[in-house]
């Protein structure tokens, strides 16, 4: 108790006495600096040289640059940057820059309502103030007018544009050649071939099938790929008249999944077998969803579990619980960090790209298979570029990196 009292007293002392001491010091300093102002020389003047619009943006930003004599740098604390819309208007402080840095990137607001708003294609004037260490400062002449503007084409993204064009070309080409009836070979994927077997097994055992779309939203392509596979699985399920359980993590995903499953039952000629209770919403929180799905697994005891889509840390909890109930498990995700857990705990795993290919495989639709061919060509080209890259780097030419550099 006494110990606490001492601490309290110490805190009180430090809290009350010390600030006073500090403020007292500051008070004492004021006359000094006032004196200094009268006697001391101002630092050299900065000279505004240019105001450059940043390329490849929507405007509203400008880099203002200035010159400053080298001997002045040690005399100043830094610069202050002021801006106005007319040379004799009121100048507003925009920001500071350190003493050895002679440019300032002025980021204006994009919205007209923003007090910070900076219009495109209008004149702006700048003034730079060097703040002397002695408290005296000196102003530059007014620089300007400078303008900022938005660009129509982003030149830094040319490699990306080329990529889009090449890829789109391949895709359209192979799809159209597939349309003409050209046979395309695709190698077998174990995970895909197991789908039919897995549905059949559940039917034999009289147990349901659990289909998990992951914890992605409709903004994840993996989820959308999973819808296609769900459509196939649901059609098989409808034909075999097995039960299907699709617990969803996100309401939009649930809505789409309901449409997909309903259509699949329709396609299989059993629209009466479908009801909306098959596809339902659990919750939108990662681990609460896992808790719910775990409960479903141990109580409904599905014979087959599908985990296809976007997964995070919950992957192993699901897969291990599924394993403990003896279900056949088919997984696939584009989350690199989670693939190892599925590989370890599931019977079949679609690794990354295979998840996207699966929809084409299951459809056996020539159009979709055509796009697989396009992917392979892109891979082939990339491998050739890698090879060229390695060879040219070996001969000391670094150009390939420059060619593919994306400047954002």
């Amino acid at each position, binding site marked *: 108790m006494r110990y606490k009292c001492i*601490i309290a007293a*110490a*805190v009180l002392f*430090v*809290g009350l006495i*010390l*600030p006073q001491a*500090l403020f007292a010091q500051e008070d004492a300093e004021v006359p000094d600096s006032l004196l200094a102002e009268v006697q001391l020389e101002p630092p050299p003047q900065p000279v505004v040289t240019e105001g450059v619009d940043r390329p490849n943006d929507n405007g509203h930003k400008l880099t203002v640059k200035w010159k400053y004599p080298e001997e002045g740098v040690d005399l100043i604390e830094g610069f202050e940057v002021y801006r106005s819309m007319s040379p004799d208007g009121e100048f507003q402080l925009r*920001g*500071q820059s*350190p003493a050895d840095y002679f440019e300032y990137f002025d*980021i204006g607001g994009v919205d007209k309502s923003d007090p910070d708003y900076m219009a495109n294609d209008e004149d702006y004037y700048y003034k730079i103030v060097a703040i002397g260490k002695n408290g005296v400062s000196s102003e530059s002449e007014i620089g300007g007018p400078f303008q900022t503007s938005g660009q129509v084409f982003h030149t830094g993204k040319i490699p990306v544009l080329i990529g889009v064009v090449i890829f789109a070309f391949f895709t359209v080409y192979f799809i159209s050649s597939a349309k003409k009836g050209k046979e395309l070979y695709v190698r077998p994927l174990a995970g895909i071939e197991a789908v039919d077997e897995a549905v059949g097994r559940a039917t034999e055992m009289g147990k349901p099938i659990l289909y998990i779309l992951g914890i992605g939203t409709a903004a994840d392509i993996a989820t959308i790929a999973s819808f296609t596979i769900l459509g196939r699985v649901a059609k098989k399920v409808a034909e075999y008249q097995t039960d299907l359980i699709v617990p969803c993590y996100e309401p939009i995903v649930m809505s789409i999944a309901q449409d997909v499953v309903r259509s699949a039952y329709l396609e299989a000629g059993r629209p009466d077998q479908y009801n909306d209770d098959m596809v339902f919403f659990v919750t939108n929180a990662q681990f609460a969803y896992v808790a719910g799905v775990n409960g479903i697994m141990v109580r409904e005891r599905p014979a087959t579990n599908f985990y296809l889509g976007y997964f995070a840390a919950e992957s192993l909890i699901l897969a291990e619980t599924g394993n*403990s109930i003896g279900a056949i498990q088919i997984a696939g995700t584009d989350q690199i*960090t989670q693939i190892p857990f599925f590989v370890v705990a599931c019977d079949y795993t679609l690794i990354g790209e295979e998840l996207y290919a699966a929809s084409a495989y299951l459809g056996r639709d020539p159009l979709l298979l055509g796009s697989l061919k396009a992917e392979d060509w892109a891979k082939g080209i990339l491998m050739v570029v890698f090879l060229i890259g390695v060879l040219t780097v070996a001969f000391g030419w670094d150009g390939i990196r420059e060619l593919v550099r994306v400047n954002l």
Partner: protein
Amino acid sequence: MNGNGEQKSLVERLQFIDRRIIFLFIAVAVVLPLLFGATLKEETTPIVQELFDFIEHLPPDSRVLLSFDYGPTTAPEIQPMADAIVRHCAERDTRLYMMAIWATGHNLTGSTIEETLKPEFPGYVYGEDYINLGYKAGNQGLIRLLFDDFKRMYSTDANGTAIDEFPMMQQIKNLKNFDLIVSFGGGFPGIKEWVLYAGDPGNIPVGGGCTAVSAPLLYPYYPNQLVGILGGAKGAAEYENALITKYPAYGKKWMGGMSLMMSQAVSHVVIMLFILFGNALYFILRAQRKLETGGGE
């Protein structure tokens, strides 16, 4: 399968050992070291030592910005780092500016102050030596704004007191006024965003502490863009080791990272023993089968 249970040998049955036995072993492996307060020393590696040395060479009254960018789920890994670095900074008499770009970080800032800073450094005065600025939304956009104008976003501290009333805030105009930024937490937004939106453009030293999982994603930024990184419990324990080496008084103190490492080591060993055990059974079984079939194939 279950019907011919009697015919199975012991080895065969052990192969499919009830997983609850494994669970029990793991639980014991984690809990026992905790109960006995056992700790494990970790030799400090350069990536951790450099951050330590940087803080060690900060002059008194240097300004250190600590951003608590993690949540309760990763706190077991990251809290020991925050404690160790707060201790070290306080030993060096630096000024601590604590903030969070994760909403969940706010509570953790508070508990770091209440449980580590206040009891161990009673001389530290709020508003002069340390301040809790609280959480602000905006992710990397917030960092960008702070980079230009700190007080525009932080006009008050976490308790709503106007920022200009604190003596230690008077010299702060923007992020460039800080001598070091340390971000705790490797998620998004986190260390990477601090590097990209503050450290790189402003040439401000940035250090970080993150979970073991996200550490490999950050190693590429060291040493050019990051002073040092504490990766997972191991990184925390390494920093604590450096701290004890320099300030031996901490040797008597309970250290979160080192205690975590003991549980880690024991449970890793348990998992490895199970793997070895399973493989041994597998090979015994295979040898037996070969004998039974005559091994002629």
